[in-house]
């Protein structure tokens, strides 16, 4: 590390990607973030202090080698930086866009300054890698002949599949939807993650030997038993699909939907796939989003773009402080008021507010009944989106077919590393961990792949007949 780099954190201020202008961006579905100039990214990377204990690195669920590639990015060694980035993260182009970046909260500069723009640097490294054509398939020199079925093509399933293929195994990914990607595809709106990024990765993975079977719902289109017969191992990576419902009077009214149903449809529409189902659109409607998390934000941004008349977000918790007391929170992820790009685009936010019921008009919702500090109120609503998180795996889905034991939290119980209660069935991602971040899913997928490789190498399993 050069001396200039050693003190750059004092000389250079943080400067990050900015969102496109609100007025402009709400009129399209393109990504809201506009990239930084490469030169500026290098300069920002120089701010990294290369800490003796890089808290960012442990703060990152995939343990990205952040100081290592910061240094390389700072000195313009982008290709080496890309190698180090890919060493821990299969899909930095996803996390570089949608990760809340716990690494930046943990950054040492966040103690008394502004953290390094880690996420932006990550994103530039990988985007540049694709631009320059440095990212091609990494085909294993020789195969092991081991076949693995992976259920679910979200980030966990994809990471697991890619790792397994690169280790020489033959993974097949089963996806019940018509396209690969899981929540990446249909959960996250295009303005946060352009879908062509997924297609690009899928192409790379296919070249590396991953087989994708879409529109195949395991347990419906094909039985778990059949997969266990055909494959050496089965990995469940189907996500935590069961949304948390709101049991309140009037819940049956039309116009009250789960956020994920709304987002899936909206995303399909953007992708040009028209749905036959009853359409859920926000255009011209007064929209109430119940739930203050990321999914809620995605609903808000989507509603804005669909032309909602108004958007109101309800959060049951009290408003967190504007800033945290770092002396007792850093390097952990602090509770504080955050404003997402979608929230910035308009609408109102209500805190400490509970939903007591819905009022309808001709079977269709017209207002949300709320209560705050014992005071009752009503909010006009023509579309209500429930974004209150997920309770766990869908009990009637593949977990049920596979007869794996679940935990009290409705996640799949694992006994050994990623090993479920059923022999030869592994699980990872939200299915095992419960709802979480994309970056956690990638970690789970990678670690599960490693566990699978170890299991396949163990003499006991080698003798298992297909």
């Amino acid at each position, binding site marked *: 590390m050069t001396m200039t780099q050693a003190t750059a954190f*004092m000389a250079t201020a943080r400067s990050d990607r900015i969102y496109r202008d609100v007025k402009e961006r709400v009129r399209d579905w393109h990504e809201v973030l506009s990239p930084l100039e490469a030169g500026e990214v290098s300069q920002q990377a120089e701010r990294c202090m290369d800490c*003796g204990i890089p808290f960012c690195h442990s703060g990152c669920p995939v343990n990205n080698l952040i100081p*290592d590639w910061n240094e390389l990015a700072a000195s313009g060694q982008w290709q080496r930086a890309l190698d180090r980035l890919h060493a821990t993260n299969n899909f930095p182009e996803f996390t570089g866009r949608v990760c809340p970046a716990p690494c930046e909260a943990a950054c*040492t500069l966040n103690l008394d300054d502004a953290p390094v723009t880690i996420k932006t640097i990550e994103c530039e490294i990988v985007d540049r890698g694709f631009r320059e054509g440095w990212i091609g398939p990494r085909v*294993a020199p020789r195969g092991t002949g081991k076949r693995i079925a992976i259920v679910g093509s979200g980030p966990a399933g994809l990471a697991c599949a890619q790792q397994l293929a690169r280790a020489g195994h033959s993974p097949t990914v089963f996806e019940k939807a018509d396209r690969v990607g899981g929540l990446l595809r249909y959960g996250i709106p295009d303005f946060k993650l352009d879908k062509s990024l997924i297609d690009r990765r899928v192409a790379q993975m296919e070249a590396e030997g991953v087989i994708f079977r879409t529109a195949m719902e395991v347990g419906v289109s094909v039985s778990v038993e059949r997969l266990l017969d055909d494959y050496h191992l089965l990995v469940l990576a189907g996500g935590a699909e069961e949304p948390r419902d709101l049991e309140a009077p009037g819940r049956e009214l039309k116009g009250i939907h789960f956020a994920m149903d709304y987002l899936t449809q909206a995303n399909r529409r953007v992708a040009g796939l028209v749905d036959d189902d009853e359409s859920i659109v926000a255009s011209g409607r007064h929209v109430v989003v119940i739930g203050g998390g990321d999914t809620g934000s995605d609903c808000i941004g989507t509603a804005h773009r669909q032309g909602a008349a108004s958007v109101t977000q309800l959060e049951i918790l009290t408003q967190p402080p504007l800033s945290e007391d770092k*002396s007792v929170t*850093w390097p952990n992820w602090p509770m504080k008021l955050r404003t997402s790009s979608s929230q910035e685009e308009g609408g109102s936010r209500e805190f400490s507010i509970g939903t007591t019921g819905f009022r309808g008009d001709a079977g269709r919702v017209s207002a949300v009944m709320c209560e705050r500090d014992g005071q009752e109120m009503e909010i006009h609503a023509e579309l209500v989106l429930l974004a209150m998180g997920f309770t766990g795996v869908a009990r009637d889905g593949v977990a049920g077919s596979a007869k794996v034991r679940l935990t009290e939290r409705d996640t799949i119980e694992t006994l050994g590393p990623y090993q479920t209660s059923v022999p030869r069935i592994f699980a990872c991602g939200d299915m095992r961990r419960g709802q979480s971040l994309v970056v956690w899913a990638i970690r789970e997928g990678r670690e599960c792949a490693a566990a699978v490789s170890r299991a396949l190498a163990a003499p006991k399993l080698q003798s298992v007949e297909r």
Partner: protein
Amino acid sequence: MDEPRVQGLYDPRHEHDSCGMGFVAHVKGAPSNDIIAKGLQILASLDHRGGVAADPTIGDGAGCLIQIPDALLRAWAVEQRINLPPAGDYAVAMCFLPRDSASREVAEARLEHFVRLEGQVFIGWRDVPVNACGLGSAVLNSAPVIRQALIGRGPNVRDQDAFERKLLAIRKQTQNPLEKLAEQQRLPGLADFYIPSFSSRTIVYKGLLLPRQLGSFYSDLTDPLTKSALAMVHQRFSTNTFPSWRLAHPYRFIAHNGEINTVRGNVNWMNARRRTLESPLIGADLDKMWPIIPHGQSDTACLDNALELLVAGGYPLAHAMMLLIPEAWAGNEQMDPARRAFYEFHAALMEPWDGPAAIAFTDGRQIGATLDRNGLRPARFCLTDDDLVVMASESGVLPIPEEKITRKWRLQPGKMLLIDLEEGRIVDDDEVKGRLAEAEPYGDWLRETQFNLKNLPSAGTEQATDAAELTRLQRAFGYTEEDLKFFLRPMAEEPDDPIGSMGTDTPVAVLSKRPRLLYEYFKQNFAQVTNPPIDPIRESLVMSLVSMIGPRPNLLGRHAGTHKRLEVSQPILTNEDLEKIRSIGDHLDGAFRTITLDATWPSNGDAQALEAALQRLCWEATEAVLADINVLVLSDRAVAPNRIPIPAALAIGAVHHHLIRQGLRMQTGLVAETGEAREVHHMCVLAGYGAEAINPWLAFDTIDDIVSGVPDPKSNYVKALNKGILKVMSKMGISTFQSYCGAQIFDSIGISSTLVERYFFGTSSTVEGIELAELAEECARRHRSGYSTVDDDGLAVGGQWAHRIGGEAHAWTPDSIANLQHAVRGNLPEKYRAFAREINEQEGPLTLRGLLDLRPAGPPVAIEDVEPAADIVRRFATGAMSFGSISREAHTTLAEAMNSIGGRSNTGEGGEEPERFRVGSEGVSFRSAIKQVASGRFGVTTEYLVNADELQIKIAQGAKPGEGGQLPGHKVDREIAKVRHSTPGVGLISPPPHHDIYSIEDLAQLIHDLRHVNPAARISVKLVSEVGVGTVAAGVAKCTADHITISGFEGGTGASPLTSLVHAGLPWEIGLAEAQQTLVLNGLRGRVTLQADGGLRTGRDVAIAALLGADEFGFATAPLIAAGCIMMRKCHLNTCPVGIATQDAVLRARFTGQPGHVVNYFFYVAEELREIMAALGTRRLEEMIGRVDLLEIKSLADHWKAKGVDLRSLLHQPTVEGSRRATPPCARSFDVPVDKALLEGLDDDGSAFVELHVSNVDRSIGTVASGEIARRFGHEGLPPGTLRARLIGTAGQSFGAFLSRGLTLELIGDANDYVGKGLSGGCLIVRPPEAARRQAHENIIVGNTCLYGAIEGEAYFAGVAGERFAVRNSGAVAVVEGMGDHGCEYMTGGVVVSIGSVGRNFAAGMSGGIAYVWDPDRQLQRQCNHTSVNLEPVEDVDRLLELVQHYGEVTGSQRALALLANWPEALSQFVQIMPHEYRRALTDNAVPEVKAA
């Protein structure tokens, strides 16, 4: 005898000794009893250089060597009716015989048998009359039966020299097998049979006696019939208290003050000569003499053995000494070419016996003395007008009237003094060496036989490795990203060993779950107390990396001159160099033949396969040597998917020791060609176990791959390695690579003793560990990672130097830091518990203490019954961190916190602002209770010393033991410069050694000084854990220290070479346990308080330290973390983002730590400890100290690598009576007559003038009074001359040490070492008496290391000063008539005027102040070290004139008057020595505020 055997961690072979010595001789060889009486008087005058054991009536040994007292023996013979042959035709064997009569009979019979067997005449036994009156019972109980055997010269020997050789053969045969015989015949006493001397010329009277007891015990010595023309005497200071008669000096030829650092290697090499050694003089008798150097002897005994062999082999005495302890010749342009050729020629015959040494030697015909190349021991001599020569460690040991003395001088570094009694004259250094150098055409021989590798024709290089293959190779050899980032790239870009900071918190290699390189199981040894480290940069003139590859000539042979030798100027070979060696057979008339031996083993094999491969390697080596192949290259180039490289150190160690055992090692050279070695430490291990040269081929390939845009990256890398190797050598005080090679200056940790025994014979090992199986597994894992097909994500992360998930484990993790900080800031005890749980639980695989479990002493007690936390925290101290390395905010926060809880904070070595000495209005004190005295002596004023509860002498620091430090100029802002009494912007160097501690008795002197300056303070000595630290601790206790800190290698630092950060020093658990065991064994434990320090984090850590023997506990990193440190490891860059280790104002403003945070931390630790105490059933901490029985060892059965770790030796409890913890010391007071008189005058009249006689036993004159003045009046002191003393005679050491302003001491006579040490404003005048008939500028007047660390004041010395004059002077003004080597070294301020010549290496590392040297002969240009200074004409001529005038007035110096008489000419002959940095700082009117680098 009663010496304890190896037990627990105690091993008698780590004993050190040191001492005072001297001789007196009549130049014309006139024997008299008076000479002996004078010798005994010298001994008595050196009394204070000895040690005081637990029992003050027991000394460590004293002795006297004289010529055979023919008259005495003849009188006895007449009485006994024995016919004694003429003098010279009979010899006396002085015998220490076993006490039990059965053994004694066997011993006597044995000697008589060999006398007869060798054809000599056994004349009879004489009982040596002894008088045991006044001896302690322990001494008497161990006293041998002392008899002399008289042996007549047999008809088969030609002359007296041949007779001497026969005697040697007899003695060796008698003595060598004694231990074995004692065992076989079940007569343990037989092993005690010892022959102090056996010669027809000399005899040694010695024993476990105090100096004054020697004459009364041996009445022979005072018998008027006993006459000798010489008496060589010695007084020993041993680190132990175990009675030993045989360890007293003199030995048969020598008396030694100092230490041979390289003795392990020297003995190995000597044994390796078995097959090649032949002597036409000794002939077949040589075979009877093996082992030439038996194992288990002291270093001096070994040297004596080597010397007697060389003398027997025909070398003249002086020649042999030059061979053993050569001057620094390599690179010495000033040396006469013939003499250089002499040394260079002999370098191939024998590696130097390296170490601080003043050695007196005699064969009865000549007597002399020599000093090692560094001149680290004092040796003063004087000549009288009645032909006496008196040489001793100090001046003034005999009361000789000044007017009789014709010359007072000292031995200079590397010089020799020789008196030839037969010729009746003194032969000076130049003559004796000149004569020997001219005796043979050494220069011609060298030209014909010596070849330097660089002059051989190139033989091309191998093909470079391709990129994919390179990564595979790197992984197979265990390369990580960090190897590239922290070592190879920086070293290839800048030729320096890379620097890092903070401590090590990773597991020692054996506990790591990852495969670690074998090198990491070896920890570098370093000098502490008993010998000094060297500064390889500033004192490069004594250092040499020259290595000889290939066979060595016969040490005793006649044809050594025709033997071809291959030399390299440094030991790292490029690929091209290696190819030259491989093809060397084609050149040099076929004198060399090289073979490459494959050091790999099959990858499908296990430990047996590895063992077989080693076996094969050894056989191939033997065969090759027997086939006259004389360079063996052990190569791992054959590494491949099916071949695993043998760890290079294992291959080298195996072959080296195998060849030594076979006596073939001297016939061949050993070169390592390895892809594994890459760091400095790796090279050192290879060299230390016998590699004469190393080719790190993969490191070169890697550099080719990763470095671009640098002109010559590989040569930078080699230079960086060279610098690093020099540093590693010098931290043990070793100057030459040749003596480092094979010297095994390492402790092993975590290697089984069978492995050590087999491949690294002689290495100390305390903690057992891996066997060949685990070693093989480590290799296999690395190899698999290299050649596995699955994972190609580049190199492993490493994680050794910075935390990385998936890398090496660390104690300080993001979680442990967050929890601790949240706990202390938010008062959240549960967060502390989470912190402690993580540390305590993870420790299992991380630290030795983690492998120990606590066992209750009895039923648990209620927590309320356990002593309160407020009492416990008084035993806590924070570690030494200087103001300068950390910010003022951080420094005062720690001090305030510790003062508020009754603990102690430590200044570190950077001084302290005087404002902090006063307690603030609200009772808040920022004064550090512990004031550190380190080698740089920065800010060590008398005022600083008296404002302390504890004075700590920092001998070594855990993170970089044996090294100095450097505060770069950009960190020295105004405030720091003020505290350190230096100039802003000028860099400051801390030398590696304390220049007043080169030996254990020097430490005693410094303790003596500090006690005098501040009698109320506890004196502490800080040591670093290494094997043998226990014996050092015992020695320190005998120096009367009150407190000893044992610091572990984990300790932190502001900046240290990475090489030292982890590879030097051991965990504190080992050092503490060894210190505890040794102190208890010696009965010294109660006298000292033991503190454990370095990596303590939790209450459990404290509990274990207490059980292992600690009374007190030092913490550094943990309280810093409580105050906000986040382990950035950027201290050395000044960029600490939390404002701790930085002087940058912007960053300092970010500091958020509060004293309360630190207090909270310590109370949490104490509360955790209380819970442990309650569970153990102990109510008070003192009940726990030394209770190793409350510890048990955890099983590591499921650890793949560490299952062999065995800590039992740590838990050994010596079965002797006595205290196992510190008991409060008794009060002390000091009565120095001069000081007493001065202070009385001050109290009575406000001023004083006294006149007194003094002698060399009056030490530290003026120091008590100075302390008192600083206490009353602060640094400002009194008006100059308020208290004055005129003293007559020779002053003892440390004359005027720490002299405060207001005191003037005038000494008429001369003074010993350390005059004006720490001078704090006082004035010193030393001048010869008018009666002296000597030229002042040709005679020495003050000893070595004067004005060391002087702060301010004046000093006028009318004569020549010894070595290292004004070293680290910060502000004193001094005038002198010449000085020895290394004058003004590290000087940072003040003015030094020399109106006489200066020695070599003048102004080395001088960064401030000005020197003026009168240089009429233009010698200065050569003598000066120009690195940091300019020579220029005098600028401030008025000041110079004023100084010389004043000097002339106060001393009456003839030379000063002569210069003044012709001042314009004199002025033109003065040279001004001006440091570059100082000039810059003076020109920059506004010194810039410190900016970040």
